[in-house]
């Protein structure tokens, strides 16, 4: 048996099922703790596997492949992976607009669901800031590569 995220999570869920059938009514609190620990462990392993999967399936930038120069979007995937690993500063140095872009995407989904009062304005201004951050960081990147 190998311990991937799904099977450990399933074990946690199985313990939940046992609890519901009242097999282990003694040690109730202990069993709950064990169950939640197993579930958290399963989620953590799943998260780790998903990061590995993302690293193995990165898209190649054809602009960089042909011209040997970074395109305005180069570094986004690497910085998302850094963000998932928790290296915030590395992610910011790789591609400064990542956090803002992810915020815009998630906020758009929430806004379409609940229709916030100032949602459109927040989206508009964060979008303008993200676009300017992308352009400025791209110019700085080109400058640091002695392109001009």
């Amino acid at each position, binding site marked *: 048996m190998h311990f991937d995220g799904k099977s450990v999570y399933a074990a946690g869920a199985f313990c939940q099922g046992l609890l519901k059938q009242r097999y282990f009514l003694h040690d109730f609190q202990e069993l709950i703790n064990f169950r939640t620990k197993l579930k958290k462990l399963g989620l953590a392993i799943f998260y780790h596997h998903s990061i590995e999967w993302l690293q193995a399936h990165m*898209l190649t930038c*054809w*602009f960089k*492949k*042909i*011209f*040997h*120069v970074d*395109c*305005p*979007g180069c570094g*986004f995937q690497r910085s998302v992976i850094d963000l998932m690993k928790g290296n915030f500063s590395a992610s910011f140095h790789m591609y400064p607009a990542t956090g803002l*872009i992810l915020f*815009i*995407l998630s906020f*758009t989904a929430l*806004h*379409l669901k609940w*229709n916030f*009062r100032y*949602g*459109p*304005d927040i*989206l*508009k201004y964060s*979008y*303008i800031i*993200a*676009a300017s951050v*992308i*352009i400025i960081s791209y110019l700085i990147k080109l400058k640091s*590569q*002695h*392109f001009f």
Partner: protein
Amino acid sequence: MEPFPITPSGRMQQHLPSANSVLVLGILSIVLCCCYGIVGCILAIVAIILANRDTRLFHANPGLYTESSYRNLRSGRVCAIIGVCLSALYLICIILFVVKFGLSVLLHPHEMQQRILEMQHR
């Protein structure tokens, strides 16, 4: 979604038909403009066309449509305009590269890389 308000004349207001899709297309255009340029360009242009149509609809009959959907539409239009600018810049950049180095170099990536490296270490 909030409930549809009722106008003084008694008719129920409705959302503009493509307000949400304009917002989504406008925001996706910036995410995809960095990937391949042309995708973002197409999405943004579609968003702008839809937004113009809906703006005309709203101005023809302002009481019939909700204010919130009109605000969604306007911010989606701004996003799409920025997205089309960025993707157009990206496309122009590619065209400038092709003009500068010639199409034949594109077919031989190795030579291309060498030329750009020469240019960088000038």
